[in-house]
């Protein structure tokens, strides 16, 4: 009897948690409150910053159950932009992103591990240049709440470092530029 009660209680709790399931957010690409940037050393003397202008994605997020969060992002790689026509053309070529063959890069999270009150390691599979590798995003919850226009928003930032060769980007930019840092800030609108 007790067992049945416990089972019932657990069941109703699960049903309740289902009702309070993490909300789904769509990354606010339309309003340009999201950006995917990269940063790479130039010769070891300074850094070049670039960005992907065209991407889409969504995430689920519940502040009470951050571990059950998930995020999916899809990037059109031919939107790479480092504010330099010739360099961007080179980045799109098969020396780098090979956008003709691999027009999309994706990130699909597989797990979230909280590392602090508002920081987490977001593990997921990154597909870039046709190569899929697990990466860990060093993520930070920035804030959430009502926006002034009747919606509800939540935002995060995240960084991770990729080794170019791991993604079959063989072009050698020198010893200081073997890795590239991804710097992502996204704001989602709750659906």
């Amino acid at each position: 009897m007790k067992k049945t009660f416990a089972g019932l209680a657990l069941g109703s709790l699960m049903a309740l948690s289902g009702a309070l399931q993490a909300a789904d957010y769509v990354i606010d690409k339309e309003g340009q409150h999201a950006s995917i940037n990269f940063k790479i050393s130039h010769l070891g003397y300074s850094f070049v910053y670039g960005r992907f202008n065209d991407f889409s994605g969504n995430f689920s997020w519940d502040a009470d159950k951050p571990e059950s969060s998930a995020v999916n992002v899809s990037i059109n790689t031919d939107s790479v932009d480092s504010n330099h026509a010739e360099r961007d053309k080179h980045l799109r070529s098969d020396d780098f992103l090979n956008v003709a063959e691999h027009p999309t890069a994706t990130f699909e999270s597989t797990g979230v591990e909280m590392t602090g009150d508002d920081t987490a390691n977001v593990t997921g599979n990154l597909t870039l240049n046709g190569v899929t590798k697990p990466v860990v995003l060093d993520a930070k919850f920035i804030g959430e709440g009502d926006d002034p226009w009747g919606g509800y928003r939540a935002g995060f930032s995240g960084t991770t470092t990729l080794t170019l060769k791991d993604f079959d980007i063989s072009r050698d930019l020198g010893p200081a530029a073997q890795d590239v840092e991804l710097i992502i800030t996204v704001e989602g609108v709750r659906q």
Partner: protein
Amino acid sequence: MSLRNTAQRYGLISVVLHWLMALGVIGLFSLGLWMTDLGYYSPYYTSAPFWHKSIGLVLAVLLVLRLVWRLANPKPDPLAGHRGWEISLSALVHLLLYLLLGIIVLSGYLISTAKGQGISLFGWLEVPALVTNLPDQADRAGAVHYWLAVSVIGLAALHALGALKHHLLDRDDTLRRMLGMRLKQGKES
């Protein structure tokens, strides 16, 4: 040899423009192939494109001067030994060479200026970007630039073979009158 063309031969201006452009076209083609294959740490990685673009701009100016000069001058008459198909084929090849060279310099300009950056002319002045942010501008212009450059080299080879055929097999004045050499047939032709 006079500065202007005559019915018999090309004048000095035409001859100089022709050979300067021949040098420019072959040089730019070789430089272009070589520079796009350089490693990032090559000492020529930044200077080779700089020279390619500056010389390309000069070639564009030469091309305009050439067309203006051609329209302002008589074209030497075909030689007596030239056959009908030779005259038509050479006219077609000449037309294509002018047309493709024009599109090549234009497409080269559109690659570098695709995001609003100008092109330096030997560091003396900057040619501004006029047409920017067309869809896939740099990539499409780049493909046109490459394939038409390959085509122009093919046409130029055909053009040179034709000239050599006239010079070595027909032993006529076709090439001599573009080299500023004394003509075999003399003034009466």
